[in-house]
């Protein structure tokens, strides 16, 4: 089977479409640590420099805009690799430089455990 590590809720997809209108192609990098850590950060594509210490988790497919790649640091991925991540959005006001904060909403990660089939597909069992 083909398995995906990341997904996006319809509400978050709508927000991404509207952000892409203003900012052009987008990307996510999942944060860790304090304050707004553990939140996904949304930037104009290329604004945040990824490199060898990052893992590309997948691309979000959102109708009408370029695929949105989702990244995480490799060290954090070690502890997160058994979970599937869905990017959602809630009312709020995250700090950090994520693009959606001025709109009064915040992207949020919803997690679930990978199924046995997915774990097999990723070579984790």
């Amino acid at each position, binding site marked *: 089977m083909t398995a995906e590590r990341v997904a996006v809720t319809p509400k978050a997809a709508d927000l991404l479409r509207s952000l892409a209108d203003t900012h052009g192609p987008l990307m996510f990098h999942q944060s860790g640590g*304090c304050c707004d850590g553990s939140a996904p950060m949304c930037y104009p594509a290329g604004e945040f420099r990824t490199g060898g210490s990052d893992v590309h988790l997948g691309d979000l497919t959102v109708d009408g805009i370029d695929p949105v790649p989702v990244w995480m640091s490799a060290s954090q991925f070690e502890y997160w690799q058994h979970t599937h991540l869905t990017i959602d959005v809630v*009312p709020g006001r995250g*700090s950090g430089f994520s693009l959606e904060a001025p709109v009064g909403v915040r992207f949020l990660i919803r997690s679930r455990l990978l199924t046995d089939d997915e774990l097999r597909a990723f070579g984790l069992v």
Partner: protein
Amino acid sequence: MTTYAAPGTAGSIVSYESRYDHFIGGEYVPPAKGQYFENPTPVTGQPFTEIARGTADDVERALDAAHGAAPAWGKTSVAERATILNRIADRMEANLEALAVAESWENGKAVRETLNADIPLAIDHFRYFAGAIRAQEGGVSEIDGDTIAYHFHEPLGVVGQIIPWNFPILMATWKLAPTLAAGNAVVLKPAEQTPASIHVLMSLISDLLPPGAVNIVNGFGVEAGKPLASNRRISKIAFTGETTTGRLIMQYASENLIPVTLELGGKSPNIFFDDVASADDAYYDKALEGFTMFALNQGEVCTCPSRALIQAGIYDRFLSDVTERTKAVKQGHPLDTETMIGAQASNDQYEKILSYIDIGKQEGARVVTGGEPADLGGELSGGYYVQPTIFEGHNKMRSFQEEIFGPVVSVAKFDDYDDAIKTANDTLYGLGAGVWSRNGNVAYRAGRDIQAGRVWVNNYHAYPAHAAFGGYKQSGIGRENHSMMLDHYQQTKNLLVNYSENKLGFF
């Protein structure tokens, strides 16, 4: 018992203005684009003031003011700067209760903490750096009989600072006090979740400072934080927050070749060895409190002791006793002095904590107590309250590995010393840690073996100005507190002077 009246209501000892502009060059200046955003209190979820929505133009204006002030401010005598810092501390002390209520209302934290910790610590911080700058010495090195190397401390000039929302006034003070002591001017951006309480502070102290020495630009990270952090006109950027933004700020700093200090959080282990329970005495009681410190400030502390490691010999008894202690944590109105745990600082923070509790349950962690949002009824129903929560599980679970920044502690058992240290260090972070043992040798060795910048031994969550604070590993770069902090805000000027009349003879 006292319940303070909410700011702006009858009988309150403090009120917020209905709107705050940027504080630039010693006066309040409207935002260039004329836009404002609402600031809700997490106590009820209702807005109580509106705040200037800063953009690059406002940041440039603040930098103009800072650059205007920096040369003269940097040349004031240390005695003059120390006097100003002491006067700031005196004003804060005289208005301690008002500041504490303002801070509690904006952040949601229990007022007993702002009265007894946040504001007194901030006051002491200004006094500490007033003393530290006067005690600081340069250096004189005699290279040879004719040649002397003088080492002077000089200010960096104009620095940028981005402040977190968990201790708005105290965290601003941690950055402001050493910066001003060292003779720098600053452009500071408060967190967008807690942009207002620092203006209550400024209303008390702004007349003490020369115009332009401290400038405050409010706004969102992407609109105001980025133009500050990436600006060519700052000599240094300091940030407290999380790892992705920390990396982005380093990336911007690399473009301008300026130094950064970063404090990026942790997942702090709190280790309880068997001998903690060898007597049922005052020390045991203190250790139970040390465990329950995970609920301090609703768990919104970078050093929250969010992983409790308990040795097998006392595991069942200790977990049972700390569960009882945790159940006794009184959740309520943050302005009630009896309240021990208040509201999470924002709705998205609240949602994030609940999403972590959810994945914790999915991963099979056992909820020992809590694990749900708390509805406190009445006007508090609109606020952001979460029950103090104890999870039992193992260190590979996400609830053991990511900073939840809520009142959630994850508990695991260990067998022996090596097991404890291995688990404690199995984390990306290294900011804080706690060690509890009656055996000084064990406590000392554990304190040295844990890879963290601050290890509390037989205490937790103390933040004296005179003790260095900062992270190992991915928890950040640099230190805050302690006189060594001055180094982060100073350049070294070496004047190499030759007192000989004679040439070298090369040319």
